């Protein structure tokens, strides 16, 4: 939890703000980017926001067994908790007339999403408890189980965005969104 610093409202803001702002009270407190950093956990598909650190699938296996397997099942194939969903397999099941099994390997378009989601939401009972190295390693393990990277490939801020997911081109825009 960050704490607010007592920064006086900058009077010069009023002079550069649009005229409409005069109608609003302007009660937002300025905050320096460095003070937002503990909250800024978004990872872009280009890798923006990925922290320092690294891991391999070999290193990730032990973390997975200890922290993930109880819900997601051995090697991510058959979850023990239905909502956990399968993480591995399902390749080829998006084909017409097949029952789709949408896993990280068969469906997810970006590997960066894996890091983003594991870091913010997993493990379920203690989210945001893994170190960056652990998130890289367990991400690498899940990617390796899906046959997307090798067991010793080093996954870090540089290599993760370059991982080519099998269903990368599987998505098209909805044609009826509002303009």
């Amino acid at each position: 939890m960050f704490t607010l610093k007592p920064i006086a409202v900058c009077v010069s803001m009023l002079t550069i703000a649009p005229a409409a702002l005069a109608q609003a009270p302007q009660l937002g407190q300025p905050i320096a980017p460095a003070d937002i950093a503990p909250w800024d956990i978004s990872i872009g598909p280009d890798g923006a926001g990925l922290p320092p650190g690294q891991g391999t699938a070999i290193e990730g296996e032990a973390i997975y067994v200890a922290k993930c397997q109880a819900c997601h099942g051995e090697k991510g194939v058959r979850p023990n908790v239905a909502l956990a969903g399968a993480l591995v397999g399902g390749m080829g099941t998006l084909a017409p007339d097949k029952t789709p099994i949408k896993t990280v390997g068969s469906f997810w378009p970006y590997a960066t999403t894996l890091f983003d989601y594991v870091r913010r939401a997993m493990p379920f009972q203690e989210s945001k408890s893994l170190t960056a190295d652990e998130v890289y390693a367990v991400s690498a393990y899940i990617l390796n189980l899906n046959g997307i990277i090798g067991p010793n490939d080093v996954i870090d801020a540089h290599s993760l965005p370059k991982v080519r997911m099998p269903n990368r081109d599987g998505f098209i825009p909805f044609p009826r969104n509002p303009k």
Partner: protein
Amino acid sequence: MIRKTHPELGDPAAGNGILSRRVFLEGTLVVGATGAGLSCGSAEPLAVQPWMKVPGPGFAGYGQPSPFESKVVKVFPPPPNPPGVGASRTPLHMLEGMITPSGLHFERSHSGVPEIDPDQHRLVIHGLVKRPLVFTVEALSRYPMQSRIAFIECGGNSLALNAPQAQPLNVAAIHGLLGCSEWTGVRLSTLLDEAGIEPEARWVIAEGADAAAMSRSIPLTKAMDDALLCLYQNGERVRPSNGYPVRLLLPGFEGNMNVKWLRRLKLTAGPAMTKDETSKYTILLKDEKAWQFVFPIEVKSVITRPSPGLALRGPGFYEISGLAWSGNGSIRQVDVSADGGRSWAPAALQGPILPKAPVRFRTAWQWNGGPAVLQSRATDDTGMVQPTRAQFAAERGFRGVYHYNAIASWRIDEMGEASNVYA
């Protein structure tokens, strides 16, 4: 004004007993003229009840429903899922009007309902803005506010109707991920203007303060159009299960994007491709492609009464009642059929008819005691008509999971029992 009187039992308006909506518009129903009305015996003599003889209990700090209404509750699956994961569903078949009581508004949460101290909560706006800003809840409460009545529907509502065989489920189980409240709060555009939007910003990544830090990317155009940071729901502070102390309302957009427990808004040039906008809430089509970023809830309706569990008690007059809504605008018309879609008649629409809010529709029906299939078909003011199940399937098949909005059917059997069918 001179009301037109009807010598007969309303006017037949469509097959299998559907009557003219003038019954509701003019209030001129004359029952029994055809001999098929309700057959009521004489009433019992009236007794003076005990609660008229002694004073009742005193006041309560927060009122509760009658204990006789204890069955009107949200429904949710038992374990093995962890508590608070998944969804609880609104019992739409036990409610009337357009507003969902706050305690019965459906909830979808990914890691339970956080217990947030509003004094400790913060909302930060950062990324592609000139001035990153932090807001306390107290500060947000001092901004000019707006109220609007709007539905929120989970993108996964009605997904049971993708199943190849119609499942024996009721309204809540199939369609209960829908709620409507009067939401009050601060326009998001006001705060984004205060932060100063950089010209290259196109998206806003919204993030909740729950343990899952649920996150979605929202087009900046929507954020600047009608997005609301809601502090109040139906006149009181937003309920914890619906995002206390502040939630995002994106009128008409799928529920998942209306991020609860809002703590962070980051302006970016592109979407974040979060878990809930890639692996979930995308619609796999008949080929191997999937629609992504499916924002609006398209025109839809459901009959809430009669419906499974609400059996008809003998032939006679019934009101067919339901809800119609569209995330693209206002409901213009709802047609109702009692013969599985062979013939239709327009229903009466209960005002107020508001954009991106549900409309209560009503149709008078003279049930003859024979089999019937009840359907409703909504049209919104963009001209979009709710598709039949076959039309829906022709466009996208049944593998998409999300945004199921085809016409739904209740079969009424000779016993008056209603069941979910495909017709």
